[in-house]
């Protein structure tokens, strides 16, 4: 990072010349995360929108940051993808030069600074709001960090969501989340939440059975980052959609 700013400062996201007025660019929509004993899951839908148009149906918005953490991005897709690329590079660079990995807190703080450096662009409608999740090797648990446009960082307990469909996803998880979920239940939970987000938010894409486009679901445990294979995530999405054919609003929580 220091080296880059000394030698090629124009490559850093914060140093670009600001465009005039509001710029239309593809936006990523909903990212959700939930912890379970033994790890954390991070998932995202596949839609990118530009105004009221669908810009891309199969965008990928969840990336491994390093072996024990992942980042999911909502907001301007182009800037976000590049921010993640730089974030991945920084973590790897630190690891190689120092011979040790950063702590999870350290990684979360670093991401916070990067979002803050994008504040100028965010004011013109090009915001990037990621969700960061990882396995804390010192505390031996999965943790989630959410951010706002100014880089403000807050740790979320249990579950979290970001992006346009986050209100609906959060509501869904609020009723379905329990602290003793298994890994499989946690992955089902996030797919349910994404389904609910897609149900009520036009900018969030639901599972697309016809085109075989399913949410990206990733799991981080003490064994590291793992992205569910195409077969696994399609199976998961299929199970959820099949149940929804009988009960369109999804599982019901107890009234009292």
């Amino acid at each position, binding site marked *: 990072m220091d080296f880059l700013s000394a030698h*090629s400062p124009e490559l850093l996201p914060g140093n670009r010349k600001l465009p005039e007025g509001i710029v239309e660019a593809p936006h990523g929509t909903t990212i959700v995360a939930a912890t379970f004993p033994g790890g954390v899951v991070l998932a995202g839908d596949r839609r990118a929108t530009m105004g009221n148009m669908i810009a891309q149906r199969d965008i990928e918005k969840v990336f491994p940051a390093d072996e024990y953490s992942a980042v999911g991005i909502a907001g301007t897709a182009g800037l976000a993808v590049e921010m993640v690329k730089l974030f991945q590079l920084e973590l790897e660079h630190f690891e190689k030069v120092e011979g040790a990995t950063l702590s999870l807190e350290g990684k979360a703080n670093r991401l916070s600074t990067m979002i803050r450096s994008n504040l100028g662009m965010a004011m013109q409608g090009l915001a990037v709001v990621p969700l960061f999740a990882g396995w804390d090797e010192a505390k031996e648990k999965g943790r989630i960090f959410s951010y706002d446009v100014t880089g403000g960082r807050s740790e979320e307990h249990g579950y979290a969501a970001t992006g346009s469909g986050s209100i609906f996803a959060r509501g869904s998880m609020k009723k379905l989340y329990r602290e003793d979920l298994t890994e499989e239940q946690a992955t089902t939970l996030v797919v349910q939440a994404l389904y609910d987000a897609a149900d009520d938010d036009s900018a969030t894409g639901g599972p697309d059975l016809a085109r075989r486009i399913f949410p990206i679901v990733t799991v981080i445990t003490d064994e*590291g980052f793992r992205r569910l294979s195409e077969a696994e995530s399609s199976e998961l999405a299929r199970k959820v959609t099949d149940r929804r054919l009988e009960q369109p609003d999804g599982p019901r929580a107890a009234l009292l």
Partner: protein
Amino acid sequence: MSTPFYVSPQQAMADRAEYARKGIARGRSLVVLQYADGIVFVGENPSRALHKFSEIYDRIGFAAAGKYNEYENLRIGGVRYADLRGYTYDRDDVTARGLANVYAQTLGTIFSSAGEKPYEVELVVAEVGTTAAGDQIYRLPHDGSIVDEHGSVAVGGNAEQISSYLDQRHRDGMTLPEALKLAVQALSSQANGSDREIPAERLEVAVLDRTRSQQRKFKRIRGRQLARLLEPVPSADAQADAVSNDEVPEDDAE
């Protein structure tokens, strides 16, 4: 004012080369060998903190003999070069050849500039290919030249003797335990013919393993895994067994 002594350029260069060679020879030797699934780095290193081998990029590893602070400088420079390249262009655009050229330039400039003392280091830059034919090993002596090596290479104190030992015994397609044992034998053989034992705790071993599923192929081998690989194979039958079964070490999460 006294007249400075005239020193011929040939003499000045020879002196500098002599100085660098002596510095390198004081350090312990290390070897880099090709084996069936990649490239293995083996060296004697009593320190756990100061590494002789390290990862530069996905497929590229670095080994150095000589003065620690000098090669550490070069190593960090190499990591920066590789990361900047990979970020600006693509991960595939970072090659050992490019890196070796940068190192050669740096070493050459330092070696021939009158103001600085020459670096007392000898480097090896290795890149593992998708097949054994794609493997590249470059040796970079202190003066900034590049030597393209095949099969095996040794640098450091007894480099000449060790590389002739390896040249006679190394063959293509060795398994990892075979290559590792050969490397340890080569390192423990001494000029006077007597062999000394190097215990596993004093060995630093790393591999660039092309069969590793991650993008980053570099991996250190230590502790139990190293001891397992160094175990002597008792008989010919067991050897045949070992070749078929447990040649590929499992990726222990360290």
